[in-house]
């Protein structure tokens, strides 16, 4: 019984990591209407950035700089490539981001080599917290903090700023916003930048937990998609809930049927989609224009 409770609590903690992975992807899709198959690539770029910058800026400095740099890269990509494709068949943005993902991965391989680069948890975040019989690592707790901060920051941005107001209006009715003389273009750039910036944050936090190698984005891309679909496309809190659920499901499955742990989230997704195709909290499907 204790083991089960332990796995559930750990699952919730790990779930915040999964939420962080999926948040950027969800934002770009819900608000920008773009299926960003390059999400994993920006995640990988974030990881490489923090590894390269930590030496000169320290972990905290690198952690703050990485999403800014990747966000700028995102603005560049959106402004010069994706913007041309909004009015066209949605398949084109999908194809573009897919091609971008492959290009980025191969570029990383060319620049850094195919081998993993070592990167450890910074000393000030290492160590473990023991509460009774339960063991947590400080690093995972810091991921929890980063996720909470990101979610809080996004909520404030969307609901308490004029930027957020225009963005929500643009999602509801882009034509009306433009008819009122407000340019929607910088909003779309900002959305994309925030989305890839969040992917980079997830990547930079992952660098200490997994190997940093060019293909690292592929491992999490599917999981991120599953979480977005589970939570419901178009739902902000759905992603949060789905991330936590995935963490718990994986942990509990690992306790009882280890070989099924990784596959359990796909089984869950199938189950949810059969009974509720829009995902747990998704809005009903409307045509994406």
């Amino acid at each position: 019984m204790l083991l089960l409770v332990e796995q559930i609590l750990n699952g919730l903690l790990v779930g915040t990591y999964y939420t962080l992975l999926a948040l950027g992807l969800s934002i770009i899709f819900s608000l920008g209407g773009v299926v960003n198959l390059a999400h994993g690539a920006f995640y990988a770029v974030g990881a490489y950035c923090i590894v390269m910058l930590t030496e000169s800026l320290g972990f905290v400095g690198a952690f703050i700089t990485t999403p800014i740099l990747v966000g700028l890269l995102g603005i560049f990509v959106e402004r010069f490539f994706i913007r041309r494709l909004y009015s066209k068949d949605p398949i084109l943005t999908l194809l573009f981001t897919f091609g971008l993902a492959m290009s980025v991965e191969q570029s990383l391989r060319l620049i850094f080599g195919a081998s993993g680069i070592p990167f450890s948890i910074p000393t000030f975040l290492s160590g473990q917290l023991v509460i009774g019989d339960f063991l947590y690592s400080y690093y995972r707790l810091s991921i929890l903090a980063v996720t909470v901060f990101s979610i809080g920051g996004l909520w404030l941005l969307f609901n308490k700023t004029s930027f957020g107001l225009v963005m929500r209006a643009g999602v509801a009715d882009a034509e009306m916003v433009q008819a009122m003389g407000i340019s929607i273009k910088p909003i779309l750039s900002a959305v994309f930048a925030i989305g890839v910036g969040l992917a980079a944050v997830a990547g930079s936090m992952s660098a200490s937990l997994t190997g940093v190698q060019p293909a690292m984005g592929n491992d999490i891309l599917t999981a991120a998609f599953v979480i977005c679909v589970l939570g419901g496309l178009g739902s902000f809190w759905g992603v949060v809930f789905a991330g936590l659920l995935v963490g718990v499901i994986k942990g509990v499955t690992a306790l009882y049927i280890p070989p099924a742990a990784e596959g359990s989230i796909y089984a869950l997704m199938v189950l949810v989609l059969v009974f509720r195709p829009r995902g747990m909290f998704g809005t009903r499907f409307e045509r994406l224009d």
Partner: protein
Amino acid sequence: MANINKTVSRRNFLKGGLGGATAIAAGTFGAPTIVGAADDTIRVGHVTPRSGFLGTLGDYGFRGVNLAVEELNAAGGILGREVDLFSEDSVGSAVAPTKAQKLIEKRKVHFLIGEISSGSGGGIMATANRLKTMYMQTGCNSDALRGEKCNPYSFHIEAGNTMYTKTIGNWQNRAGNVKGKKFYMLTADYAFGHDLAKVSTRFLTENGGTVMANELVATNTPDYSPYILKIKAANPDFVYINLAGADQTTFLKQYKEYGLDFAVSGGVMDTAGFWAAGIESITGYWQSLWYHGMDTPSSKAFAEAFTEKYKKPPENQAWGDYIGVKIMAAAMEEAKSTDPAKLIPLLESGMQFDILKPRKGYFRKWDHSLLQQMFVVKVKDKADMKDEWDIFEIVEASPGDSENLELIQPTQAENMCVFG
């Protein structure tokens, strides 16, 4: 009437003869326009995964085989012919056999070399056997490939799981670390992992140890925390990992993150995975097929040439693919032929090769396993590292200088192979 025979002019005879020969040749090769050119080069078919959790190792294999071909061509080729390298990404076990077939049938390679995944390796072996092409297998650890799935066209340069297990197991046994100890196993959930777990369990229990649990973990698992918590609850003497490729790195980093103090050992060790984990995350004694810090002249020459070309030292996978090509080259020169009908008996006769280790290696006749030394290595203290790749010191060679090379190999009772 007798004159009719003489009306077959020489011109017509030559035309007919040439046409017939072309037709026969075309029928044999299946490519009517390339007759003649096919015999000018020696063609090497390299398959290895270049993506996924084994992609990093595959990259080393690719570089190793490229260096070997480059060196051979600089020295005049094989049998005076230039060596051509065709390299394919085997991707996974579903795709690997078709890539092997493509190399044999379309590229007309003289032999296949490479692969890392035992799942893919089995398929490539079957293809090579079916199409009567030799295959130097350089990365698949599963004993079954040398045992129940063996075939006469396949040769095994990579050590099998039994060899890895016996190398570290014998050493740990002598150090008193097996008898009466409890082991918690984490095993990669595919052919290699299952095989290694079976072999490791057999060795540990035969020598008085207990395997508390054997968790099957999917490859590419990003988060090991559920398993680490289970290990904490189980309280073993050793955590024993049977994980492959990048999964070794992920587990070692996260195990360090949780700060448990159970010692870690395992049935396999890939240097590339340990480099990627970083010196802070690794400890203990491990088994290694080879190591770039080896102090023999030919080994140092290879390590230096590789480092100069690729700006980083070779990993074991590079060693395997490199010597695989060199072994085939030496065999072809000795036999003065590329015909498997001559090469296979030559290799089976015990022809010795410089495999960049203190002792030479040769193939065992009944299962084509390379009889070779392996090594027990210890993770260095950070302060003793000469550079970022200098993570091990070699503790001992196994078998030792005067011991029988069969000491670490599976016996016929353990892993029977019959070339049907």
